[in-house]
């Protein structure tokens, strides 16, 4: 899969296509971010934390436990 360079606009478009983020689709959104950029950028984690009310730690805790999620480019 070809990866796109991270741009906040691309991420926002992706959020819009998924009708926003909630606890119900957080895992799916994280997956789409990973598949689009090849990793889940810090800005995205911060933004998703704000939107879902989870702490960044909570999201990183989950992300780093999966083999196929990367947190660095």
């Amino acid at each position: 899969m070809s990866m796109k360079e991270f741009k906040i606009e691309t991420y926002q478009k992706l959020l819009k296509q998924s009708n926003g983020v909630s606890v119900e689709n957080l895992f799916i959104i994280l997956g789409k971010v990973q598949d689009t950029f090849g990793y889940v950028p810090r800005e995205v984690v911060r933004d998703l934390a704000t939107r879902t009310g989870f702490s960044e730690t909570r999201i990183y805790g989950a992300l780093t436990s999966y083999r196929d999620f990367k947190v660095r480019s």
Partner: protein
Amino acid sequence: MKERKVLTRRVGKYNPLDLKAYEALGGLQGLKQALSMGPELVVEEIERSGLTGRGGNGFRTALKWAFAAHQKPKPKYFICNAEEGELGTFKDKVLLDGDPWAVLEGILIGAWAIGAEQAYIYIRGEYDKTYSLWGKISVEAKKAGLLGKGILDSTLSVDLHVVKGRGLYITGEELALISSLEAHRAMSRPKPPYPSEQGLFGKPTVVNNVETLANIPVILTNKAEEYQKLSVREERGTRLFSLSGDVKHAGVYELEIGSGTLEELINEFGGGTLNGRPIKAVQPGGGTSAFLGRAYLGCKLTAKAIRQAGSEMGTAGVIVYEEGKTAVDIVRGLLEFYADESCGRCAPCRIGVVRCKEIVERLSDGKGVAGDLERLREICKACISASTCGMGQAFPLPVLSALELFPEDFEAVIDKVSA
């Protein structure tokens, strides 16, 4: 022994994106039947068919459905478990790629039976093409009115979320899968409460294997009575056997349950062992099932017969090992995998599997120490009795059975050490 293609009868016969072709081949009859019967009768029909889960545990599908259907809290969730991670198991992929609409039909009927409006299919991350196919399937289904509100002009409304797994074996376990969908680490927890009471987001949830769901439309199209004619008395239907290991023709073969023996499967479909050497052992139900020695090759392919022989039918992933390799090395391979994959939630599995691996690695490197075999047995037994989920309870089974079946392999390496 002959293949009996029931679930795989359409595989390769149509373009998986072509819903019209699927209908022309008898598709959607089961769903239409289910919608006209109403949820309670659907559960009854599945109950009469005697269908059991194909994901490893062999739990009665209708019971799961009935539990969830009787729960009051809403919303309810229906999950198709397509995180096919068990070693030597690759049968779900055949259905997901070759006859996806039948699986979708199963999901819709299941959602109808328990009253779920949200459905998920959790596809193994390594199945990249399958995942993109299902993305397209869900779009096509929406266009055709098979997903969304008022499916086929009924009161059934279902949204399907296609989710990709992220490379962890443990997400194949239903509670770990649920915790993964909640964007937690993938970890199991003690049962009860069962998912049918408190599953995804604490709501009633049913998790079914792909092959189980592919059976559903077959049962409803032909009625339970027809379905019962398949196979032996207590166990109904067909099973998809994933045959691999030291055989000439690895592959997926659909057989009526109980229609043949392990040996017939290996010789007639697998073309015998890879190098023509005699069979040393077989794992009949995936990587976590106990080894069966040569004496049990005449074992009938039913869950009951395999259990009596001392193993489990599990996922029906038959792994064949021929003579030439020592049991120590075979077990080492398995333990290295499971040590990597333990989720770490409960101590017996987290620590036990690593200690087992260390001992077996030591043995296979010729550095075993006195008492290693006793220690290995002891840790295995502790893991079986104290682990939370199926993984911790099952990974010791091949280890213990190898110790029992091939003591000479293990004693040989111990002898070398003390000499």
